[in-house]
């Protein structure tokens, strides 16, 4: 690796480790950051309002303390950590917060958030549970209401032109993420899973233009590498919800695997689907966030009439990625208390079986303390498929 590369990875590491660093700087310059959780918040509308979307993160290293005095321990452990950090003031630099109907944990704790945190703007975006034509109509209106709430907050109208511009620059960001993913196709990949997840996570704390610049730098740096990663090893696909801490991916790579693709929220789910351009912006966003973001929370009707056909429709993106990135095995990583993912485990298992892709299913609690026990499972799995 050349010098240039090391400076880029230092920038990424710095943003990753000091999450929110840039936001705090820019707040000093009068910029307003709006926090969000989940892949289902239409970021383009925040960008169009002149505010900056900021993905709120948890920490697997921080024991949950204050959060537990306000929120039950039976909520999703990832979300519990995010809430705990928030009530401890880690994200006090934000001006507002948007929470979508991503799961029951988000819905039922909305009051605990909105009454407990000092932000002047709070909004809940209701995401339909089904995907009918009428659901898209409803979602158009719901996004209209979201837009209106931001206009009220900033005192400025959001025009169609603002939205188009925001869609363009967010799509650019997705093109760059796609290009980063392309670097994983060689064997061994040019970029490790750990580096990629750190880069994307760092990006989600920056204004979208800066995120674009950062991704460009990483792309140039990685393409200029003399050698690919040192080790060939089983090519692993990670399937699950939000893994905004790199520990699991790092563990896989320490043990000799290479993470080459994923469905995770702060990976492919957030970053790969693009918004259509040319038509009405709100409608295009509604199609993207409800139609294209594939989250188990959204019920997609069984149109095939068979189980095999149903799972092929629901999980088809997994098969496509797995083939494209030549995965040798997959890890389905599910948080305890996660109803949307949890109920899909048998069907997902069957789907991986139909792909003939070996699968390791892990249930975890979003804590670095569990990595020791995950180590044996991951290593045994790599031994099994290696």
């Amino acid at each position, binding site marked *: 690796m050349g010098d240039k590369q090391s400076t880029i990875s230092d920038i990424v590491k710095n943003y990753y480790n000091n999450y929110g660093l840039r936001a705090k700087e820019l707040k000093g310059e009068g910029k307003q950051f709006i926090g969000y959780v989940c892949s289902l918040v239409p970021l383009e509308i925040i960008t169009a309002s002149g505010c900056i979307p900021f993905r709120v993160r948890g920490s697997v290293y921080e024991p949950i303390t204050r959060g537990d005095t306000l929120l039950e321990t039976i909520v999703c452990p990832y979300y519990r950590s995010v809430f705990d950090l928030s009530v401890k003031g880690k994200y006090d630099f934000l001006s507002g917060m948007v929470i979508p109907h991503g799961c029951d944990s988000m819905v039922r704790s909305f009051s605990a958030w909105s009454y407990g945190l000092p932000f002047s703007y709070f909004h809940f975006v209701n995401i339909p549970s089904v995907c009918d034509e009428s659901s898209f109509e409803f979602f158009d209106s719901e996004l209209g209401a979201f837009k209106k709430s931001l206009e009220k907050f900033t005192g400025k109208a959001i025009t169609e032109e603002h939205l188009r511009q925001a869609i363009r620059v967010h799509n650019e960001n997705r093109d760059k993420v796609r290009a980063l993913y392309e670097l994983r196709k060689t064997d061994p990949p040019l970029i490790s899973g750990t580096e990629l997840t750190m880069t994307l996570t760092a990006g989600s704390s920056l204004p979208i233009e800066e995120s674009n610049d950062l991704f460009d730098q990483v792309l140039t740096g990685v393409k200029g590498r003399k050698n690919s990663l040192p080790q060939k090893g089983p090519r692993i696909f990670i399937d699950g919800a939000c893994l905004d801490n790199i520990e699991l991916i790092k563990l896989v790579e320490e043990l000799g695997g290479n993470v080459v693709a994923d469905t995770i929220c702060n990976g492919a789910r957030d970053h790969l689907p693009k918004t259509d351009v040319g038509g009405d912006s709100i409608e295009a966003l509604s199609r993207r966030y409800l139609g294209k973001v594939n989250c188990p929370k959204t019920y997609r009707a069984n149109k095939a009439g068979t189980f095999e056909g149903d799972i092929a429709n629901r999980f088809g993106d997994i098969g496509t990625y797995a083939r494209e990135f030549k995965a040798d095995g997959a890890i389905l990583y599910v948080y305890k208390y996660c109803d949307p993912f949890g109920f899909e485990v048998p069907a997902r298992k069957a789907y991986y079986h139909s792909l003939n892709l070996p699968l390791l299913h892990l249930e975890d609690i979003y804590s670095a303390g569990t990595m020791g026990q995950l180590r*044996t499972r991951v290593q045994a799995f790599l031994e099994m498929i290696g």
Partner: protein
Amino acid sequence: MTLPDYFAGIDIGSTMTKAVILDKGVIASIIGPTGPEQRRLANRVMEEALKQAALSIQEINFIVATGYGRINVPFADKQFTEITCHGRGIVQLFPEARTIIDIGGQDVKGIKIDASGKIVDFVMNDKCAAGSGRFIEVIADTLGVSLDTVGDLSLQSSHPATISNICTIYAQQEVAASLAEGVPLSDLLAGVHQSLADRICRMVNRLRVEDSVIVTGGGAKNRGLINALSEQLGHKVLVPEDPLLTGALGAALMGKEIIEKARKSNAPIETKERILEEVEIL
């Protein structure tokens, strides 16, 4: 004349350290002391095994470490998980084995293997004492019975008690209360064994259990548990003669295979310096 080959496997479990040395067959096997502070001293177990085989550590061609403490064994050439090693060790002893249940001090594993001993699938319980050998230990302690006798005592029961709590702490209270109410000891123990067997079955049933089923680890020495398991699984259950050693045996065999494979392809064999130092535990 070529020198004979020697392979060693060392299995550092959460409560016991085991070592096996092979040439064509097992020439030494040692089960080391228990307890967390001794785990570090796995080198002593290795020393003893070497003494038994009348070998020096330099004479061992390849050493594989496995088990919970495998990660920082300074004298091991390679590490494999106990899952892979149990598979390899068991298929050597029971070529017809397809399902392995390893009941250790701190965790339980279910392993499916194919005819060559290769892992097809596995499950592991989370680090909760309720599903492991520790559960029986705690209850034996509460009831004031020695751990070696609980299994046999439980077999004397004709009316196993129902233990409704699976949490070790709750179950401990429940058992103490039942004892005070006069429930016979053997019935309580039978209930406790059934409850543990039930937890284990629930986990192992996530794999499609196929014959033959082999149980290894410390739990395999408990006849009461083996009976309860066999009954609840609906499968006959076999136990190796020395159920604690299958991981170390498998580890030694893995080493043997690595050497053989390397020789066949003329690949270099990477070994570490043979220093018998203490083990760092994570």
